[in-house]
């Protein structure tokens, strides 16, 4: 069975051969301690450095490309946006936070909360 090794917390999880699994879903299911927040490619809290197994990953999705930018070339991925179909080894900074405090997204959210009610 292929496995994902979450090296930072010294945890390994297996999944059935032939399946393609979401890395954050596996991390949540097996409570490996990977930080995350939004689960949809916006915050960047769940960025992982892929040490082995990059060839088994799906191509980066649009939100991941936009959120990570040049970090993608350095081997980072967003766990919530990444599917693997083979063995994988990843690490992360246990203290890491989202990538975007004070970002455009935060400004957009703030604007939304302060806006007039929706007309629809």
């Amino acid at each position: 069975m292929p496995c994902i090794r979450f090296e930072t917390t010294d945890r390994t999880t297996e999944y059935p051969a032939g399946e393609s699994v979401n890395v954050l879903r596996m991390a949540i299911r097996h409570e490996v301690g990977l930080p995350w927040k939004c689960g949809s490619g916006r915050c960047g809290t769940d960025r992982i450095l892929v040490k082995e197994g990059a060839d088994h990953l799906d191509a980066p999705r649009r939100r991941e490309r936009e959120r990570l930018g040049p970090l993608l070339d350095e081997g980072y991925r967003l766990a919530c946006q990444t599917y693997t179909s083979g063995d994988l080894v990843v690490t992360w900074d246990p203290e890491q936070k989202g990538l975007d405090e004070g970002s455009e997204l935060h400004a957009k959210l703030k604007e939304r909360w302060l806006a007039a009610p929706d007309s629809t």
Partner: protein
Amino acid sequence: MTDLLNESDFRDALEQAMTGTMAKDASFSRAWATGKLDRKHFVNWAVNHYHYVGAFADCLALIYANTPDSARDAKDFLLQNMYEEELSDDRHTDLLIRFGEVCGATREQIMDRRNAMPYTKGMAGWQYQLSATQHFAVATAAMVVGLESQVPSIYRTQYPVLIDEAGYGFTEHDCEFFDLHITSDEVHGERGYQIVLKYADTPALQQACIIAVREAADMRFNYTKSLYETYVKPDLGEWVEPTATEARVASLV
């Protein structure tokens, strides 16, 4: 009387409850994934899907109200799920309307309940009834495990052909609704399982959850099948699974 299942057996039973009625295998989903649909079919889908998923956040709010403060993690999950549906980024139903508009519908047409199938209205009513009256673990089992956790498996087969130039030829922007749900519902689905596994803590509650998941999967399967019967069958006839070479986008089948 059935014994209390351990976590692993209970999870297996919940997964088993959806076997054979996964919406990704229903005729409309298969026609979609194999490149057989036209834009007018997507308009019909958008209208009905709006009235099916439009009820979702309301239903989560009903479950939230029925969840005791002692289950704080469950309450927080429901609230976060609602927030992500409605406010954290683009409103999910707005992304759905965007796709419908690209296919030729108007916002008003999509939002007008009279344009939805009777089955869709019935399904929305079933969601409200279940969310308002059932124990929060049972309602979460139906709404999140039975319905929402299926989403990645459905859209992972439908999204590639949408944005493939040799397929339906939409842009990534047109189809953001699908891409977003592929990944966000992985997380929602998994958290839903965790809530159900934790709070369905008697044999009776576990069995009620298994029944609710089976019922939810059945509802979604038949809703998807009804889309084909109502809108596609008049054009394509009874659904017959194409061979790989017959499919418009053989590599994506």
